[in-house]
């Protein structure tokens, strides 16, 4: 997982301007948030459910809220954050649609990083072995995985199209060779991961009272 961590983190770092207000959903041990604070001078907060992750964030001096990302955004006012990050987490959300709407209600922009389930290695694995694909960063068995909402790049594009969510930027990543940005064609087949910069559809998402 380490090469991916580095490349997706540096991609996300490149999307966020200096001094922004950032919220990292499912921030884990806070390593991305820590980089953002140190290298980008952001005002950042993390949300994390796991005890060990929360303790690690506090040890790094990062503000962190222990809670569930499916509910954790409810308390934030509309537009109170510049960038809401959801990196390698959407596939584990119970209600990804709610999380996406909420992140674009709270954040002026959203950044979503996710594994592309239509990546050719995944397809090949399924085709040749007939078993659920496992990769470096998706190393779970079907019965113990927290990942319950996989999608492909094409699925995610379609979803944004359907809901009017504005895709401002798409960056594709492969982990091979220490991790690099993939700039070639047919990303749905050849990109292992994607990072999307999003904003709300015209009119935006508002808090329901």
């Amino acid at each position, binding site marked *: 997982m380490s090469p991916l961590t580095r490349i997706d983190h540096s991609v996300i770092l490149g999307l966020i301007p200096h001094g922004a207000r950032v919220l990292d959903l499912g921030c884990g041990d806070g390593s991305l948030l820590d980089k953002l604070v140190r290298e980008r001078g952001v005002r950042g907060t993390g949300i994390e459910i796991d005890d060990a992750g929360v*303790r690690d964030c*506090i*040890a790094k001096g990062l*503000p*962190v809220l222990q*809670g569930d990302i499916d509910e954790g955004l409810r308390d*934030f006012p509309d537009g109170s954050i510049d960038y809401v990050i959801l990196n390698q987490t959407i596939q584990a959300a119970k209600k990804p649609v709610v999380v996406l709407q909420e992140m674009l209600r709270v954040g002026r922009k959203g950044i979503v990083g996710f594994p592309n389930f239509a990546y050719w290695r995944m397809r090949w694995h399924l085709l040749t072995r007939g078993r659920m694909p496992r990769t470096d960063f998706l190393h779970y068995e079907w019965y113990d995985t927290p990942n319950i909402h996989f999608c492909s790049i094409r699925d995610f594009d379609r979803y944004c199209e359907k809901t009017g969510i504005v895709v401002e930027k798409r960056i594709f990543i492969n982990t091979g060779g220490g991790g690099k940005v993939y700039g070639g064609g047919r990303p749905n087949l050849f990109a292992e991961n994607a990072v999307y910069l999003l904003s709300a559809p015209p009119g935006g998402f508002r808090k329901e009272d």
Partner: protein
Amino acid sequence: MPHTRQPGSVGPVKKQFHTFCEPPHELELEGGGRLGPITLAYETYGRLNREKSNAILILHALTGDSHAAGIYAEDDPKPGWWDYLIGPGRPVDTDKYFVICSNVIGGCQGSTGPASVNPATGRPYGLTFPVITVNDMVRAQAHLLDHMGIDRLLAVLGGSMGGMQALVWSVLFPDRIMAAIPIATTAKHSPQQIAFNQVGRAAIMADSHFNGGDYYGGEIPRSGLSLARMVGHITYRSDEAMHERFGRKLRGKKALGYNFGIDFEVESFLHYQGDSFVERFDANAYLYITKAIDYFDLSMPSGSLTAELARAKCKFLVVSFSSDWLYPPYQSKEVVKSLLVNGIDATYCEIETRFGHDAFLLPGEMDTIIGNFLANLASRGGIKAPSVS
């Protein structure tokens, strides 16, 4: 200091006293009336740095006192109530920080309260003592800090009623603290919390020795105060912790007695807690302090917790415990929510534990969390440790 102290403990400590608000400069109380002179009993651990910027104020709970750490004598069997948390090399590190803990007004451990002698009459106040609030407790603490020449605290830190005081500090004196650490607490007492306190007060006031609070020098309302404490102790523990500690074990017998004597371990435990409490606590003080926390509502006067917390300028570390049903996690989350709406820098931890409300007084995960939070606060704030003398 003699080199006999245990590593990690602050060792022998002394209770100190400061008297202020001498008439005609009495403290104006929130509920009306004035109080003065006021004495606060307090203890300090560690040393103040040259900039006077490394002070941490510890805030005690309902029946706590200023003795948060250390021992009074070499043969003292029982250290202060947060001794495992406070000391050289401990999370609240007395090599780095100057730690202060004072007994609240209205209490009975050396600070002015209903058992103190009213200088105007030469007799104990009893129920003529004015009703005080958590805000009044905090204002009195601010006088103590003025006396020590400390403008700004690194942090205020407390659990339960101590957490309420920490919250009050953040809005009453926003420029005087860098961080507030409210633990296992609430922004306002719920009807359930008020209800339990009312049972305790009713037990005290129904005691035949209560005599309208004027019992000093005679028989004290022993059984009433003991009963109040027994009720309290039930609320401090989770169902699971009681199962684990007592189960349905019988006390000193092999079979049920089929009478109204003590059968179960848990009954014996509660009576022991009640009886020993009477030896160290004043019944009137119990009335005054429980009333103060029942009145506590940080959302007043505006009625909006968010509007009131908008005055806060410090960082927050809010801690709750999963099995605490007296001050359940949802009450801490309400505080965090209002902080977030105000864009205030907040960290929230809900610690998984089976020990109920009592968890904040027991060693556990909270210790490291507090230690790391304070260390980051001090290093980012450029707070220096006191120079080695």
